[in-house]
């Protein structure tokens, strides 16, 4: 019995892991797009990201697992939550109703079917898609390790870093230096841009409204100092 179980796990272990994480991911994803409150939808992202991180682990990419949890779950999702809380403070609970459910479902379903169908074409099926075997072993000490692995067949003299993490760093600072630097430039630009967009300026943006009505502008310009000071506290986002 135990023997059978062990064999089964050896044979289908990764498939089972995959199925579990996939179910977690998809279930959470459906919640993300259907929850009534935006807060709930946002919180549902968390299990979804955890599931995806698990999938990365199945695909033997510990670096992606770490960054998925760090950046997506720890950074982006929290950022979204902050934004939602800021808005709800002003506008009350925000519902996220769906509309056009049928056409949207139709388009999304069509897309899914089309991609899944494309997966069945010969150019995909004819490939040998087995992953090469892995051996989980720390290269430096030779002990078994869950985060470090290498390929016993191709392991030769230590010319390149062995670990997934080390290799990623190695590639980022050598072959992919330019994309790396460009990405950081984009990141800086995005941060600066975000700050510039939400920055409060004196004038009509600080007033919180477009200068649609001229009499309003007139009033504001007359008593500029007090009006701005009064609105500033009120309009705090």
């Amino acid at each position, binding site marked *: 019995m135990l023997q059978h179980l062990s064999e089964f796990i050896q044979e289908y272990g990764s498939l089972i892991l995959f199925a579990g994480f996939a179910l977690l991911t998809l279930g959470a994803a459906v919640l993300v797009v259907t929850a009534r409150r935006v807060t709930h939808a946002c919180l549902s992202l968390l299990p979804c990201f955890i599931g995806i991180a698990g999938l990365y682990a199945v695909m033997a990419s510990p670096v992606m697992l770490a960054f998925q949890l760090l950046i997506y779950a720890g950074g982006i999702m929290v950022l979204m939550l902050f934004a939602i809380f800021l808005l709800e403070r002003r506008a009350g609970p925000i519902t996220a109703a769906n509309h056009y459910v049928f056409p*949207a479902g139709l*388009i999304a379903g*069509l*897309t899914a079917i*089309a991609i899944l*169908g494309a997966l*069945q*074409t*010969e*150019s995909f099926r004819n490939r040998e898609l087995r992953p090469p075997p892995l051996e989980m072993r720390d290269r430096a000490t030779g002990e078994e390790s869950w985060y470090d692995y290498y390929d016993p067949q191709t392991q030769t003299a230590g010319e390149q870093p062995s670990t997934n993490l080390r290799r990623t760093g190695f590639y980022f600072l050598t072959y992919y230096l330019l994309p790396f630097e460009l990405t950081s430039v984009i990141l800086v630009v995005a941060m600066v841009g975000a700050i510039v967009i939400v920055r409060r300026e004196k004038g009509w943006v600080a007033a919180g409204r477009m200068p649609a009505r001229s009499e309003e502008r007139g009033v504001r310009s007359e008593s500029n100092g007090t009006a701005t000071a009064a609105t500033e506290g009120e309009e705090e986002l």
Partner: protein
Amino acid sequence: MVSPFFENLAWLIPLLPLLACGVLIGWGVKLHRKIGDRVALIAVAGIAIPCVIAWGILASRVSQTFGAPHEAGTHGESARETIEGPEPFEMAVEWAPLGPLSPAVLSPVTRDLSPAFDGRLKVGLRIDNLTAAMLAMITLVAMLIQIYSIGYMHGDERYPRFFAYMSLFCFSMLLLVLAGSFLVLFAGWELVGLCSYLLIGFWFQKPSAASAAKKAFIVNRVGDFGFLIGIMIIFFHVPSLDIRAALAAAGTAAFPPHWVAIAGACLFTGAIGKSAQFPLHVWLPDAMEGPTPVSALIHAATMVAAGVYMVARISTLYVVPQVAELEVFAGLTSLEIVRYIGIITAVLAGTIGIAQNDIKRVLAYSTVSQLGFMMFALGMGMAGWVAGVFHLLTHAFFKALLFLGSGSVIHGCGGEQDMTKMGGLRKAMPTTFWTFLMGTLALTGVPLFWAGFWSKDEIMAASWAVDQPVFWLGEFAAFCTALYMGRLMFLTFAGDHPRDHSIHAHESPKVMTVPLTILAVFSVGLGWLGMPGDHNLMHHFLGSSAPQIAEHAEHAVAGGAINIAGIEFEIVPLCVSVMAAGLGWLLAAVIWGWKLVDVPRLKQAVPPIAWAHNVLKNKYFFDEIYHATFVRGTLALAAGCGLFDKYVVDGIVNLVGWATTRVFAGLARLADTWIVDGLVNLIAEAQKLAGRFAAMLQTGRVQHYIAFSALIAALIAAAIYVLGGHWI
């Protein structure tokens, strides 16, 4: 051996003025508003640091020249003698890789004989003794003039812009001097022309200044045309733009002497324009419309000397055909052309200077005349080479001094430039007077103490040895120099009582008089370096840059082309020079100092004097002649072309047009109405429909766009599915 510390910094020399120029162009106005006239210190700093470097280089080269043991002096065969100096210092970067030249564009001989052009254009700098001396002179004079300008330009509306242009000029001039290849030389050459144009026309509100700037620019273009052709000839034969390579190749089979002569003559055309030699000298006196510091720096000390410098640098190109006695034009060799153009200019400008009343114009004609001296010194081949360059250096100092002094005078007299309205300024402006006197004594060649005497006397001695008629003409020009400078001094400074504008004359501020003093010191002291004899330092220092063609020496002696340090001290030219200067001063004193001769009455009494005065006052009618021939000729040609265009070309076009209208118009109208209009309208309608459809998609809602693009993506994926993925 001195370490080449300063040489390694040489690239900074032209760069710093350029930097100063950029700063002043970009932020000059703002800074001027904030810190006032101190903004000029940027320009001063931009030339002061190069000045330090340049003097460092000079010191290093002097110690290398005199420190190293070498056969110097007068013993041995003087005909064969060449003076050795330290190796030139070179620095170059590749500028534009052109790729190898197709053999088809090279001359047939070059193709076989000379090393192929490697396809790399290099820009770089090259410093030999001549360059080092020029650098030291230019940076020092330029720095003093920049300092002087701080006071002189005070209150000008475009104060920072003036200094920006001056700095740009310094950059260009230093680039020109440092040039190691004809390419860089030409770039500097044109840039100084541009700066000259900008600065002559600095007060462009004055129509006279604007037109003087244009005149200078256009006249210079005439010369530059020849210059460019000369460079092309050299490149075609050598084929390299490197100056040293060109000089080395001169006279070889690849670059035969008759082509050397033609190239030299073409290059000399450029020098004629830039150094204001006859017949292109007309622009320089007009250039005095610019501010006085400009006249001092550009039109006396440096830029106009660029032509002389260039001829000195390439004088091998003149000496080589001289050795072969090849005629270029009207039975003259190219070296003789240089010599005669120089002497004509010297005499012509010297005589004109006597009859001018504008203080700056007198100095301008004096400059032209002195440039003529330098040119004919170079035109005597190796005999006059050092003398010409020596005169160039001394002249730069004392002529800058004279111009700055005249600027000080003009400044003190409230902008008056007419000498006949001045007088008695000696008391009012003592510093200006004494420094001016030093400059004048140097220029007129008063013996023993003043620099001009030593350099000019060397030219005279060389010409006495090589070409006696030229010697006598040169002495006549020297006499004229003394005459007009004496006249200038007596009219401006002599007398007890100031006249007219001079009543309120006052001494200029310190910032203007201190540079005058420093220049005066150099005007006196520089000549001592060039005293003839065994210890002629100038000869030994500059001699290493002189044309070195030892293998032709035997023939060269006959042609009067060689014998570099071998000018024997001769008593005759010395005495004649002293007499010429003395006579000039004496005559000036008689007429304008002691007023023993009443000039108007003399003119009435002796008509030829009146005529001569008229001719000289009108500068031999050069401007009128040029206007009547070249300017009017060009206009007439243009008018003729206009008429041809109007009647002949237009007539043909109109005839064709008329015929076309009659015959084809009917047919064309039918086709136009139905086919062309129909098509156009159809397209327009189709566009309208498509537009209306596309506008419907443009709802402004982001989700519609996403849905639409997703649908398209899904359709593409479906297409992959249906078609089996083979086509991707």
